[in-house]
């Protein structure tokens, strides 16, 4: 069963503001029984201030649909319509302590019911512009319609591109088969054939040769230097011992109040360049003893 948060369960077992509202002056309805979930949101709006005095809902749907409806009514009560419109579906999900990716559509439905109710109050037309497909990427909750439209709009032709545009496939990668199928379909429409890209070079940062590792460390240092030199400072690589990189801060950088910040930035770049956790530690350079003329 779904791994619902305690808040979701609480709102499902004890829904707030459930039931019809006789004197509602704003009603929003979304969904349908054939889709498996339907929500009617009813508001009592104070005409002068446009403040939501009361909100209630009736929902046909799963546990998280009912919990999202309940949460929504709690969140918007006391708000003005304009304030309420700022409530996003992510806000509803956050209020509930998160929703499983498969269930995010429940929060979307809540948000849409709200838009629909406010449009109803203001005598506006509200059209849903949201079509949902089968969930493909569970890591980032991306559905097939989103992927398909993105491929079509941008002429994409590889899984990697789809990941860059939509995030789909960027996590556990088990949906790559599904993404490839959509790619093959859309590419066929434009008369192309999907060609799988060669498997990406496995970057095994842990397996860097010592030479390559030192080279990359030096590159990071070199990249940092111009900025520091502009401020009349400098940085120099002193030594590398396992996961500790010793550097010397020179000139204006030495003893600068921003030294920790500078080092933090360098350390972050080191971690990215090496693909491993390393520590950048400042050391004082021993000044070489002055040359004494023996004669």
């Amino acid at each position, binding site marked *: *069963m*779904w*791994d*619902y948060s305690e808040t979701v*369960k609480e709102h*499902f*077992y004890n*829904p707030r503001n*459930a*039931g019809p509202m006789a004197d509602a002056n704003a009603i*929003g*309805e*979304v*969904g*349908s*029984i*054939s*889709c*498996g*979930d*339907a*929500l*009617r949101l009813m508001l009592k709006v104070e005409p002068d201030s446009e403040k939501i005095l009361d909100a209630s809902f*009736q*929902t*046909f*749907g*799963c*546990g998280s*649909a*009912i919990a999202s409806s309940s949460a929504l009514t709690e969140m918007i009560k006391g708000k003005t319509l304009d304030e309420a419109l700022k409530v996003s579906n992510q806000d509803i999900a956050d209020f509930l302590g998160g929703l499983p*990716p*498969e*269930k*995010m*559509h429940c929060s979307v439905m809540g948000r849409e019911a709200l838009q*629909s109710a406010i449009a109803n109050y203001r005598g506006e037309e*509200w*059209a*849903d512009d949201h079509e*949902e*497909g*089968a*969930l493909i990427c569970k890591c980032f*909750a991306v*559905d*097939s*319609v989103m992927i398909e439209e993105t491929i079509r709009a941008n002429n994409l032709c590889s899984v990697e591109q789809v990941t860059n545009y939509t995030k789909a496939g960027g996590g556990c990668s088990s949906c790559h088969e599904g993404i490839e199928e959509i790619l093959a379909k859309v590419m066929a429409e434009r008369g192309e054939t999907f060609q799988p890209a060669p498997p990406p070079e496995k970057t095994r940062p842990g397996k860097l040769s010592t030479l390559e590792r030192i080279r990359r460390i030096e590159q990071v240092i070199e990249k940092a230097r111009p900025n520091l030199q502009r401020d009349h400072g400098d940085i120099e690589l002193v030594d590398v011992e396992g996961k500790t990189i010793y550097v010397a801060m020179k000139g204006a950088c030495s003893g600068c109040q921003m030294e920790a910040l500078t080092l933090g930035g360098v350390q972050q770049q080191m971690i990215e360049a090496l693909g491993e956790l390393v520590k950048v530690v400042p050391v004082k350079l021993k000044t070489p003893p002055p040359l004494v003329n023996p004669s």
Partner: protein
Amino acid sequence: MSIPNSLPPIYLDNNATTRCAPEAVAAMLPYFTEQFGNPSSMHSFGSKVGHEVKAARAALQKLLGAEYDSEIVYTAGGTEADNTAILSALKASPDRKEIITTSVEHHAVLHLCDQLEKDGYTIHRLKVDGKGRLDLDEYRKLLTDKVAIVSVMWANNETGTLFPVEEMARLAHDANILFHTDAVQAVGKVELNMADSAIDMLSLSGHKLHGPKGIGALYLRRGSRFRPLLRGGGQERGRRAGTENVPGIIGLGVAARLAREHMAYENTQVRALRDKLQAGILAAVPNAFATGDLDNRLPNTLNIAFEYVEGEAILMLLNKQGIAASSGSACTSGSLEPSHVMRAMGIPYTAAHGTIRFSLSRENTEAEIDRVIAAVPLIIAQLRKLSPYWGENGPVTDPDKAFAPTYA
């Protein structure tokens, strides 16, 4: 999800999985430790194990009423057995590019067929009527020499509806076509006599009959043309390579013996409890009905459609009271469709999203059934109170008009 209740839990989801019988667990335990030998080995560690595997195979043979114990090929479960059977038939008859199955199969067969369709095979999915029954005339017309295999489940997992597989196998046999049945739900609940059957292949799963998970078997009639799915060491007479899951095989052997001993109980006492549950719920809940072929179904299975409420919400409220059941509806993004079985039977949308399956086992008691009968009506009433499709005393007169969303 944890069961947030002090009442003892009631497990009515035995078509999903069963509790492994304690006798089976006890019999398995030595095979993890002192009896760890590989049955293929030449030394005494292995040979004793090999002997016990043979005894377990005989127990399963008896449950199936098979003529030879060598007709049993152990697999990792029902899904592997289903895949093995269908892919074997395609491999054995490369000129035959068609498969006959039904629209209500388990995903182990259905999703494999979907994939094979993409690979160029033609899949005939037999339709069912409102009670989930097949049209044998439609079936007969499809039996041509282009068909590699017929795969039809013995009993449907959601409704318990039984299919006339023996008769269908004879028809396939007359047309010189292999016949496979996914009998995962039937084995242990239905008397089987494979020695007198025209069925060529039959899949079963250990954990559906109080055996362990991770073990299943494919019954393979002697002489049936077969091509292995897994090749490697010569285990299972070269038909399924891989070192035997010895504890699983031993556990399944015990489970098979117990299932035979309880066959009569299953078909009398368990059936009576199921019937009581059905009558009790339907008497107390308006706008609800049982689905499937009610006169011809598994003795343990009850599927009820509750109108104007959604299945997952029902399950969550049941779970809160310690009652475990299941729902065909999978309410997730983009797949707000009710189960493929309910759709195939043409159950209206007003009810299809609210179908709940109660599947009993020999371990359930009458007191448990009474508790469920008491709990369900209140849960349904509670959810209907929330539903925009339900008025004061019943469904709103015209749901389509009463609820008019901006989009549907």
